[in-house]
């Protein structure tokens, strides 16, 4: 092939790759969604065992990226069966009525090298709010590793009603941490 043709072909390929975002395959086993919070001032980090994360990401054009995270509210693992059963009840997640909590991104913008700002809608226990949080992304061995922390106030979603409204027992501030390993 003539050199000019090769260059043209290469640049066309390059352009088409750059223009489209690609849906990555999330490695569920290596990814995690966890809630960190304080109970009686003791810091605790608990994972949601069941999650579905879909990331549509293009490193060259992050603005075209999309992300959705869905977790099963009854899958929060607090380390004790009794506590896990409690957190699925009406006063907490009310998993019977609201089995899933979701985040759907509306925009992802670059905030510097390896940094993104993700904005979107967070829905927990039937309440939807607009949220924005930082996410770091780095390429590791052919995979993309995303790490983000989304601070929320649990009372805004009625998580912990009745006697659990007491924030000296469980603090209002909860940080949802995302660690996602995904490959093209």
């Amino acid at each position, binding site marked *: 092939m003539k050199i000019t043709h090769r260059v043209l072909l290469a640049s066309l390929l390059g352009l088409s790759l750059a223009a489209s975002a690609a849906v990555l395959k999330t490695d569920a086993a290596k990814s995690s969604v966890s809630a960190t919070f304080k*109970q*009686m*001032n*003791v*810091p*605790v980090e608990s994972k949601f065992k069941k999650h579905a994360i879909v990331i549509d990401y293009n490193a060259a054009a992050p603005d075209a990226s999309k992300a959705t995270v869905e977790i099963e509210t009854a899958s929060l693992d607090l*380390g004790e069966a009794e*506590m896990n059963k409690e957190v699925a009840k009406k006063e907490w997640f009310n998993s019977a009525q609201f089995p899933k909590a979701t985040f759907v991104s509306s925009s992802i913008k670059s905030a510097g090298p390896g940094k993104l700002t993700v904005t979107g809608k967070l829905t927990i226990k039937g309440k939807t709010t607009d949220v924005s949080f930082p996410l770091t992304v780095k390429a590791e061995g052919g995979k993309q590793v995303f790490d983000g922390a989304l601070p929320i106030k649990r009372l805004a979603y009625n998580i912990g009603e009745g006697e659990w409204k*007491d924030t000296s*027992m469980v603090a209002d501030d909860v940080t949802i941490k995302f660690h996602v390993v995904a490959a093209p």
Partner: protein
Amino acid sequence: MQRYTKTAMLLHWLMAILIIAAFFLGLTMVDIKGFSPTKLRYYSWHKWLGMTVLALAVLRALWRLRHAPPPAPAGMPRWQHQASELMHYALYALIFAVPLSGYLYTTAANVPVVYLGLLPIPPLFEGTPELKAVFKPIHYWLTMGMAAAVVAHAGAALKHHFIDRDDILKRMLP
């Protein structure tokens, strides 16, 4: 009659109260069904009591190293003296072992202690469900061992006081 020092008496009775409180709180808290703020409070208080006992145990041991207790009353049979030595050493070991095992258990459960809700006690390692399953029975059985020792210890003191009518118990009373 030679008595124990005032410091020894204070530490003895103070720790007795804290240990008994922690014990009954421990028994009560694990029996609470479900999960409530009360249960959470009891667990925290139980751990704070344990940490306090551990700190006092250090002071107690240091004091004991520098201040020998009153000598055994004249005429006490040798076996009885030896039995009491053994019991007291066991109790000294337990006032360290029981709260330490509790600390290891809670660390293994990834629930670090924040003493009085203010002072975080650093966890020495990352907990796992396997480690948690190891330390739980250790803490439980050491606690039961201590309970048995305390009953024997108190029983012996009362026996000396009411049956032998000697000064053994009086020496520990201000």
